[in-house]
């Protein structure tokens, strides 16, 4: 169903003819992303989102976004804001929806060094923000998907954990100020911004609308569009510039003074998780998360071929259970403390730093990039097969993550035995530890499938579905994929106090005409 | 006076031989990385039409039937001076036999209404069958002359020179008539820049099979039993050495002799 000419003209009047398109070839670009099939539970041979946007718009400012929303309400159209689009939930998924590509809103409004606050627009990439922040001795929270992703999107509307979560928490916890164009076109300035025009706090007065704005997962555009947000920044002990040497495809970082990068290994999940308790209790890492050595192996090599050759050597297998760390001290004393703790913890838990692994070219460097800002994730997670999905995630304690890892292994094994996923590299990611694990530990038992291979994709779809069931029956908890979208809610909500019923009310009350795409969130009551 | 020129889109017959690929499995010939062109003989027919237009004044309409017709290619006819372009495009028209194409053209002509003269190329540069024009004349029941090397309008009649081996025949016919035109007519003129820009903006008629009332049952696809690539025409370029043209000549002769 195409837009009526009247509606199209109304939209065109807002953004100008060069910033709106209905061109099908253009829409294809807004209808494709990896993991669509398992995420949407759509057929393996169907590569695109079930519904394509009717049009894509490039709004240039908050007022334009508001005007667009008013047109949507008037003509019965839905909108879906799009940051960098690196997740199915960020694409338009319902019929009669327009995509708002926020690309033109790409300013860093302010970096307030004194109060450690950055105010950003939607298309500021995590990597860009990182570079600008370190000039002032600060860093933003970064998410696993890495530097190309929209910092605003992960903070305000999607989900965000990453290797630095141990010190920068979960994206939803870093929000200090929000400028929010609701589905109705109304503008909400949350917290201190609404009361006094300052960006430092978004909670209150009274109850916090942050709770409506997002939860563990974001609303994926279903409650409107976030046009500017303020986020908390964290300390950066390094120099004012990231420096590297070498040329494509591997650039080796010049690791700053008072920082170091290690890949630590243990002989089992249990030992590693024991160490995680000690690491977080001692508050001694700058960044650090679990990632089996096969994942590190993929990150440190230049090609799949090189990775395969490294795999043949057996070094990675020897270090199957690995935890990458960056240490970083603001003083000599701090870094010495961190180094000493690491040594002590490895001793207590039977862990080691494998010299042979460290000697592999780019090993130390890729670990650094990864922990710095989710760099090299593409090598680690996508180069092998092109896509991935997860078996039974769930965030709570470190012990629970350990339990989830075993569960993930069990769930994946039959498929891996049949050669349907990348072997041995299973369970590659996870255990981002939020706030020194005081609010939990993320884990993603991750399997890499080939979206070009129908059988592999079918297996991914099936395991994706079964995993949600397993998360419930095995009690590992509701994590990343169990928490977003109507389909997951239908399965999980009855086992979690019917949260879905409230979300449906929220959707109805905040978006009475369903003028925002409900796909990544839920249908209204 | 209204002249209709039938033009077919063909792979460029002048494509470098290495770019031509014969696929025996799909029974298709492709020219890799080479754009299709208007059949050169049809271009000659268009040139003939334009000359009549130059001299006598006429409306020249180009019609093309096929599947996946490139408007960019066919619009060249407008750029050189044709008044209108009609494209009849349907997936059904892929690899039709000559009589079916003639039938489709006849249906399109019905929709177009009155005409005085129809010009087609003598044959198409892809399969070189040379039948469509003649069958179309037969269907339309109008005088038809093939292998025309020149054409003129005199006193309301068409006067054409038809090629014979070593001679030509002067044919005069009432209108409407159909002529199939040969390359001797002369190459299609170059477009002038201003017209080119207009040609890409000018609205054209794009019709489907349904628009002209084609009866699908009457369409016959060519049933090709086999398509084989030509024997390897490997070339080997040798430079004949020699200090003077004479010496080079001698050396060449000796090589040709097998010495």
């Amino acid at each position, binding site marked *: 169903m195409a837009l009526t000419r009247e509606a199209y003209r109304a939209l065109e009047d807002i953004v100008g003819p060069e910033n709106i398109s209905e061109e099908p070839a253009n829409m294809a670009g807004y209808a494709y992303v990896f993991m669509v099939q398992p995420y949407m539970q759509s057929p393996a041979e169907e590569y695109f989102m079930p519904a394509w946007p009717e049009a894509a718009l490039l709004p240039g400012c908050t007022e334009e976004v508001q005007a667009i929303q008013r047109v949507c309400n008037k003509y019965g159209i839905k909108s879906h804001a799009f940051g960098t689009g690196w997740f199915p939930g960020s694409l338009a998924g319902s019929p009669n929806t327009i995509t708002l590509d926020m690309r033109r809103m790409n300013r860093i409004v302010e970096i307030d060094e004194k109060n450690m606050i950055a105010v950003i627009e939607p298309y500021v990439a995590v990597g860009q923000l990182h570079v600008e922040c370190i000039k002032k001795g600060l860093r933003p929270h970064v998410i696993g998907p890495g530097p190309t992703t929209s910092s605003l999107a992960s903070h305000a509307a999607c989900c965000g954990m990453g290797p630095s979560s141990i010190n920068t928490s979960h994206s939803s916890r870093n929000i200090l100020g929000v400028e929010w164009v609701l589905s109705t076109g109304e503008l909400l300035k949350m917290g201190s911004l609404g009361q006094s025009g300052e960006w430092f706090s978004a909670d209150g007065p009274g109850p916090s609308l942050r709770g409506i704005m997002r939860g563990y997962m974001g609303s994926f555009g279903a409650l409107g569009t976030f046009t500017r947000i303020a986020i908390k920044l*964290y300390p950066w002990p390094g120099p004012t510039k990231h420096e590297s040497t070498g040329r494509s495809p591997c650039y080796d970082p010049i690791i700053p003074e008072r920082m170091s990068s290690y890949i630590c290994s243990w002989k089992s999940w249990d030992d590693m998780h024991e160490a995680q308790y000690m690491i977080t209790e001692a508050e001694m890492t700058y960044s650090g998360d679990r990632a089996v050595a096969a994942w590190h192996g993929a990150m440190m090599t230049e090609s799949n071929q090189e990775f395969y050759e490294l795999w043949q050597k057996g070094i990675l297998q020897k270090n199957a259970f690995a935890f990458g760390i960056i240490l970083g001290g603001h003083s000599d004393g701090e870094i010495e*403390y961190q180094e000493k703790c690491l040594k002590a913890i490895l001793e207590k838990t039977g862990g080691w730093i494998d010299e042979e692994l460290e000697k592999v070219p780019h090993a130390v460097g890729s670990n650094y990039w990864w922990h710095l800002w989710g760099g090299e994730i593409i090598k680690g997670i996508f180069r092998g097969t092109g896509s991935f999905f997860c078996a039974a995630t769930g965030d709570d304690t470190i012990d629970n993550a350990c339990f989830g890892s075993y569960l993930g292994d069990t769930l994946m094994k039959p498929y891996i035995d049949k050669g349907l996923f990348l072997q041995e590299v299973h369970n590659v990611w996870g255990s981002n530890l939020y706030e020194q694990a005081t609010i939990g530990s993320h884990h993603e038992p991750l399997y890499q499938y080939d979206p070009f291979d129908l059988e592999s994709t079918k297996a991914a779809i099936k395991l994706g579905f079964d995993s949600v069931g397993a998360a419930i029956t095995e009690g590992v908890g509701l994590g990343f994929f169990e928490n977003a979208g109507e389909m997951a809610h239908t399965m999980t909500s009855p086992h979690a106090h019917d949260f879905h019923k409230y979300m449906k009310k929220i959707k109805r009350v905040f978006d009475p005409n369903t003028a925002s795409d409900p796909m990544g969130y839920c249908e209204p009551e | 006076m209204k002249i209709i020129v039938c033009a077919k889109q063909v792979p460029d017959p002048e494509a470098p031989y290495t770019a031509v690929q014969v696929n025996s499995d799909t029974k298709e010939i492709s020219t890799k990385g080479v754009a299709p062109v208007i059949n050169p003989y049809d271009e000659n027919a268009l040139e003939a039409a334009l000359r009549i237009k130059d001299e006598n004044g006429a409306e020249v309409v180009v019609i093309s039937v096929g599947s996946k017709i490139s408007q960019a290619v066919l619009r060249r006819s407008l750029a050189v001076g044709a008044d209108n372009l009609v494209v009849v495009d349907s997936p059904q028209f892929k690899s039709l036999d000559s009589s079916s194409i003639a039938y489709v053209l006849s249906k399109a002509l019905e929709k177009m209404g009155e005409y005085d003269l129809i010009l087609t190329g003598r044959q198409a540069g892809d399969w070189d069958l040379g039948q469509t024009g003649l069958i179309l004349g037969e269907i339309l029941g109008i005088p038809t002359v093939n292998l025309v090397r020149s054409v003129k309008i005199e006193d309301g009649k068409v006067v054409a020179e038809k090629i014979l081996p070593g001679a030509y025949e002067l044919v005069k016919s009432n209108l409407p008539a159909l002529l199939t035109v040969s390359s001797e007519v002369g190459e299609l003129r170059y477009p002038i820049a201003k017209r080119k820009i207009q040609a890409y903006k000018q609205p054209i008629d794009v019709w489907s099979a349904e628009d002209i009332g084609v009866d699908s049952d009457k369409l016959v696809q060519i049933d090709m039993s086999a398509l084989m690539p030509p024997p390897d025409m490997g070339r080997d370029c040798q430079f004949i050495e020699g200090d003077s043209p004479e010496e080079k000549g001698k050396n060449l002769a000796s090589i040709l002799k097998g010495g």
Partner: protein
Amino acid sequence: MAQKDELTKIIGKKNVLDDQKTLDAYSRDESFVIPVRPSCVVKPTKNTEVQALIKWANETGTPLVPVSSGAPHYRGDTIPATGGAVVVDLSKMNKIIRVDRRNRVAMIEPGVTFGEFIAALDKEGLAAHMPLVPRSTKSVVGSYLEREPITMPRHHWDPQDPLLCMEVIFGDGHLFMTGSAAGPGTLAQQWENKRAQIRPMGPAQTDFQRVVQGSQGTMGIVTWLSVKCRVKPELKKSFLVPAKKVEDLLGLVQKMQKVLLGDDCLILNSHNLACIMAKDSSEVATLKDALPPYVLFISAEGRGVSPEDKVAYQVNDIKIAAQANGLIPLEALPCGLSADDVAAALAKPSDEPYWKNKAKGACRDIFFLTTIDRTPKFVKAMFDQAESKGFSPNDIGVYLQPTVNGTSCHVEFNLNCDSNNKAEMAKVKGLVNDSLVFANMGAFFSRPYGSWSDMVYRRDGETATFLKKVKTIFDPNKIMNPGKLCF
């Protein structure tokens, strides 16, 4: 009385009180909120009773006012705004459900006070995140639900800290658990699966607990909270940094927050520090005179595999940072007050009398959020205000608490007063109600009690509009503490 019979049916006779004395006690507090007498006070003992109460209230249209701390109350939020209300006093729900040393979390009911909580944690090797010396009757759940700041900004990642998950019975009568506690599985099953209800976010795409927190009981009644605790330090080094002006201390505070140095970090003026440390009112005056005008209290705690090293490097770095700001961290002030004594006082609830009442028998607070760098102008404004209203600057306590890793700062002025002095009380009332002057300077009243709620929701009508929408979702019949906030 039909109401009493029905309530008795729900929670038993001994837990339904309607004697005049009790009703009087619950009808007024230490705030300037107009006293309104409830029709009944009930003391449920378990969540099913609370749920039944809320269902009954929905059916009968009876307003419910939840209370968890013991008297005296200070903020007016526990005083009914309309007649015919039933006060739900949760003090009998006072179980410490679980203390989990490994995951640094505890689960508690609303009736648990800080004293009880600290003792229970201590046994397991944990320590609580403390607001500034709470009164002995203060409920931990109440404090955390009201977003009272804690004294350790480095552990304060989010304004909702240290609150993690909760069980809440919303105004519509639905029993709900938030965060990772939501499910699947019962709590017992979750514990079995090594879960400890520590992830506050969610479930799914809503942070339900944020809607409940700060709502002054207008969304539902919380029946337990899981809360973030810290590991009891093996050693702790504390310092007092004296200064003449607030401004002088801010560079060090900002530096410490920027590099996440130290644990406790707060600024008190001499009045407040004296009130906290003195035995009684007479000692307050002497101690205050001996104290520098402002004191920054900081500490570094040692825990984990190498506690001594942790403290050692932090102390060293703190000293360097202090020196760079022209300050000297002292283990004891010249008057003899030692940093360790202050640390000890901050680690437990207030002795009696409550420190805020120590000087003059009563106290009213003005507090709001800003950023650290903007605090001096507010301090000045407070004293200017007091002067203009004829209130003695001598009776003003100042408490500056960096929050959320130093990205914001809680500013609190404690106006010490004598409740029997009507003239003085009128001045205090004037100062509290005239807080618009701070709002106009950029102060953020994130916890709008009493008359402040009118002020803030008038200022920010959009937020009020959307909060009202939220209210229709969780408490459609508006039975939860009506008349508070913008509902």
